C-alpha cells in the first residue's frame, strides 16, 4: 500500500520505485515523440487505435520535434530546448496525440486532421 497517515490521504507518499523517469535527454525525447505519435511509431499497439501505419522514414527527429513544439505553442526550433523538455514532462494522457497522416496531408494543421481509418 502507498503510505499515508491522514484520513483524506492528502499526505500520500509514493514510493520512489514508482516515479516516472523524467525526460531529460534526446533519447528519452525521441522515445516520447515516438510513443505519442509524433514520429515513428513504436512496435507496441497504441491505445485508441487499432493499428497504425509505420511512419515514413523521411520524418526526422527534428521534424517531429518541430511539430510537437508548434502544437504546444513553443518556439519552433526543432531542437530539444528547456521549454520542450518541460512540456514533455507534464502530466498527460497516454493516448497518442496524432495519427501519422499519409505523406500528402502532412502539411495540414495538427489537431484538425481527419483520422485515417483503414477500410473495414
Amino acid at each position, binding site marked *: 500500500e502507498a503510505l499515508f497517515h491522514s484520513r483524506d*490521504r492528502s499526505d500520500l507518499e509514493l514510493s520512489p520505485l514508482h516515479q516516472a523517469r523524467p525526460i531529460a535527454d534526446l533519447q528519452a525525447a525521441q522515445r516520447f515523440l515516438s510513443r505519442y505519435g509524433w514520429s515513428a511509431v513504436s512496435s507496441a499497439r497504441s491505445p485508441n487505435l487499432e493499428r497504425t501505419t509505420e511512419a515514413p522514414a523521411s520524418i526526422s527527429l527534428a521534424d517531429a520535434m518541430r511539430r510537437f513544439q508548434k502544437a504546444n505553442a513553443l518556439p519552433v526550433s526543432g531542437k530539444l530546448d528547456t521549454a520542450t523538455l518541460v512540456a514533455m514532462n507534464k502530466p498527460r*494522457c497516454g*493516448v497518442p496525440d496524432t495519427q501519422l497522416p499519409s505523406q500528402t496531408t502532412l502539411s495540414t494543421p*495538427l489537431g484538425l486532421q481527419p483520422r485515417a481509418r483503414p477500410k473495414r
Partner: protein
Amino acid sequence: FLQMLLPKLDRQQEDSSHSGATRAFSRKTLTWRLVGEAYSSQLSVDEQRYIFKLAFRMWSEVIPLNFREDLTAPGAMVNIKLGFGRGRHLGCTRVFDGSGQEFAHAWRLGDIHFDDDEHFTPPTSDTGISLLKVAVHEIGHVLGLPHIYRTGSIMHPNYTPHEPAFELDWSDRKAIQKLYGSCKGSFDIAFDWIRKERNQYGEMMVRFSTYFFRNSWYWLYENRNNRTRYGDPIQILTGWHGIPAENIDAFVHIWTRRRDERYFFKGSQYWRYDGDKDQALLEDEQGRSYPRLISEGFPGIPSPLDTAFYDRKKQLIYFFKESFVFAFDINRNQVLNSYPMKLTEVFPAITPQNHPFRNIDSAYYSYAHNSIFFFKGNAYWKVVSEKDKQQNSRLPSNGLFPKKHISEKWFDLCDVHISTLNM
C-alpha cells in the same frame, strides 16, 4: 479477467457505425463498470464510482447518449470498463510509467485505465490530479474524440491543474456533437420566469430565466450563453415545490399593472405558484384553496389542456386543446364570444400545410426573442411578431413561419440516464 479486457472485435464493432465521422457507438444507452479487481487504493470505492458516474453524466448532458452503470452483466457485455493499475496492468500492452507524466489511457470502444501511481483526488480537492477531469477526458477518447490542442479543451493531452470546476466548453460540445448529433425531443412546457429585483440603486429590475420541462425533469436555459445551466437537467421535485412532479400541461404568468399570478396546469387542475416563497400556494389572498379545478378558475376552458400562454398586450390567455384555441379574457373572466376557434384560423400558416394543426406541446412566449413559439415534437413554429409585421406588412397577423428544429435554436437540452438524474 484478461479475456475480458482483450478487444472484443465482434461485439464492439457490432455497436459502432461507420457513418463517415469517427463515431464510436450507435446505441443510445451504453453500460460501464469500474472493474472490481481494479479499484484505486487512494479513494473509497463509492467515491470512485460516484466520480465516474458524474463523468459519464457530463457527456450525456451534451449528446443524445445515456450511460448506465452495470454491476451485474457478464464483463464481456459491458461497453466501457474502467480500472486502476500500476506499471504493467490489467493485461494491457501499454505499461504505466509510475507517478508523473502518463496518468491514464483509453482503448477505443472499450476500456479506460488509470495509473494508480498518480495521486488522484476527488473534485472537491485542489491538489493532486482530479480523477473527474481525467475520467471525462478518457471517456471522450472512448466516444471517439482525439486530442485537441486548444486551451480550455477537456481533450487537451496535458492535464491543467488548479482549474475551478471545469465543464465541457462550446467547442468540445460541438466536437462530440459532430460524432453523435445534437439532442432532440419534445417538451411539456417552456416558459420564461420573471424575476423582479432591485439593483444597488434601489431601482426595480426585471430579469427572466427560461425553463424547459420534460417528463419529471427540467432545464434552466441560459440565453446569454446559448446552453443549458451546467449540471441540468434536474428533477422538477428538486427545484419546484408543491406542483405535480411530472408531465405538466401548461404554465401561465398573468402579469399586469395590478396582477402578478403564475399558474401551472395539469389534468383538470391548476396550481398557483408563489415565486417569493418558492412554493405552490395552498390558499390565495381571496381564500381560494389550491389546486383548483380549471373549470372553476377559468370557466369555459376544457381540460386536460395541450398548453396555454398569456398575451400581455391583449391581456388574454390562449388555451390550446387538440385543434382548437380558446381566448380567455382575464378581466371579464370568460372566454371571448368568438371562441373556440380553429388553431389554423387564429394562427394561419404562412407556407401552406406547414402548420402543427393540432395537439401542440407547448406555446412559449420568449422575452429573449420577443416572440411566441409553438412547440410540437422536436420542431417549433415562430408566430409573426410585431417586429416581423413592421418589416413585412403583408405577413398575416399571428401567422406561423415554417417550422424549424428546436435543437437548432436552443442547444444541449439533453436527457441523462434516470439513475443519474439526482446528481
